[in-house]
């Protein structure tokens, strides 16, 4: 594949992860369990939407096609979104939301660390900025995992349950295909097999402090990177795309 096209695909994957998780988190705004936490979750949502914006703007500027950043974000069909299945999972409760966030942050931190060394200057710059945010996100979600795991019997049970359910979406994080391989060779993309150890270490450390058992199930769900999503995705997009679909081709 032409390198520009591969990079475009790669940017969509990263942008979609940020966008879809940001969209999910923003559903909490006004409904958080404590005011301080409402503010914190909104902050993380804002960072994620900001990352998505940077990534889509870069993708758009490559000139692979004529779509703007907003068109990339809002007017693709479901099967053209490339995000991990993990990030589209429903909020369910604060425990699920936090477990989802933690499993993702623990991946995103070493990922952006590595990506900030990318030979692609612009991508490296986006990664560096995102890394600063992600460090805070990971600290926040790790602390909550520990609080919930260690807190009360109820919170322990809830967070363990959330982890068990979401575990099926973790293997997918480290899947790589030809696009990854091509861009890794060009020094642009991150080799996910290299950062996996760092993810595992962080997850084990936090689980152990929180008293959360590592799930034993080996069954895994995959397909997000190929556009095969879970049933939740359609509803998320119906809401997110509502304005762009109902009032096409307008500026806001």
């Amino acid at each position: 594949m032409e390198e520009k096209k591969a990079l475009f695909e790669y940017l969509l994957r990263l942008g979609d992860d940020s966008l879809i998780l940001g969209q999910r988190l923003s559903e909490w705004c006004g409904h958080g369990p404590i005011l301080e936490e409402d503010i914190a979750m909104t902050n993380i949502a804002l960072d994620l939407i900001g990352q998505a914006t940077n990534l889509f703007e870069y993708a758009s500027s490559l000139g692979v096609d004529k779509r703007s950043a907003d068109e990339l974000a809002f007017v693709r069909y479901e099967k053209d979104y490339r995000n991990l299945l993990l990030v589209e999972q429903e909020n369910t409760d604060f425990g699920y939301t936090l477990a989802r966030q933690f499993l993702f942050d623990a991946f995103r931190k070493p990922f952006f660390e590595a990506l900030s060394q990318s030979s692609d200057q612009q991508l490296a710059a986006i990664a560096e900025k995102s890394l600063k945010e992600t460090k805070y996100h990971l600290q926040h979600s790790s602390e909550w995992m520990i609080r919930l795991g260690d807190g009360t019997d109820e919170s322990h049970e809830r967070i363990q349950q959330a982890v068990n359910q979401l575990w099926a979406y973790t293997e997918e994080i480290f899947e790589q295909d030809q696009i990854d391989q091509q861009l890794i060779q060009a020094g642009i993309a991150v080799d996910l097999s290299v950062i996996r150890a760092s993810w595992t270490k962080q997850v084990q450390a936090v689980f152990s402090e929180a008293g959360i058992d590592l799930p034993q199930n080996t069954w895994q769900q995959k397909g997000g990177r190929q556009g095969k999503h879970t049933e939740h995705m359609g509803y998320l997009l119906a809401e997110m795309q509502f304005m762009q679909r109902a009032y096409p081709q307008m500026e806001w």
Partner: protein
Amino acid sequence: MSQELSIEELEKRFQEKIDAEIKIEPNDWMPDDYRKTLIRQISQHAHSEIVGMLPEGNWITRAPSLRRKAVLLAKVQDEAGHGLYLYSAAETLGADREETIDDLHSGKAKYSSIFNYPTLSWADMGTIGWLVDGAAIMNQVPLCRCSYGPYARAMVRVCKEESFHQRQGFEIVTKLAQGTPEQKEMAQDSLNRWWWPSLMMFGPSDADSQHTAQSMKWKIKRNTNDDLRQQFVDITVPQAELIGLTIPDPDLKWNEERQSYDFGEINWDEFNQVIRGNGPCNKKRIEDRRNAKENGKWVREAALAHAEKRKMKKAV
């Protein structure tokens, strides 16, 4: 320090301080009614910020562009921050935050009635910023000089952000008013729905306002409701004209003699109904806040339990 001052003497000295524009601080002596009035007003204000997150929060997941989504998230987050400062200001007077919030949930405490109206289109995100934050600024700028120090200082921070919100809101409406016919219609429809409720935000007419006179003497309040409402109309009408929208008031007319706009009669029956809980969204708003608190109970308990365990471990 003389310990044996009579209540009359304390009250006299208190009023002298107020008259001399000296700020009252949390540990200063103050009349019970002054404290009660402030607690009522500040917590009502805090509740308004928090309940006010809901109508706009309603559109975050449907915002039409990445930029608009981010700006709206940031705005609603600012409102949460305002709620926090204000609950803290109320706490300096001895009002417990959680108890205050329970009063909101039980219906004992009030909040601004404007937030009981529904947000039905994207244009409402513009109109709320423009009119509702705009009206809030009018109400709040004088509060920056309120006699109670912590409230006045909180208001200085809040007002800066509110004027930012007002400009962003006006920008959204302007973009729509200059957009396609559908967008322009969306903007006009939104203005039609929010204009009158915005005028009601200044509260009942002075003749019917229970609290105005005493509050003005204590410099908790500096202007009357009707004065502020008039100011708001005079500033807002030209803005609507500038972007080609029509204020939904057939009686609206420039009064050359007063150098001010005359405007139509406010529907106070509607106002009173909404205050009594019969607005379109009263039940939903309170239910949402109550659910947030109830669903978050296990989370708060976990945080507390964990903090306790940690303390015990450290102590060992």
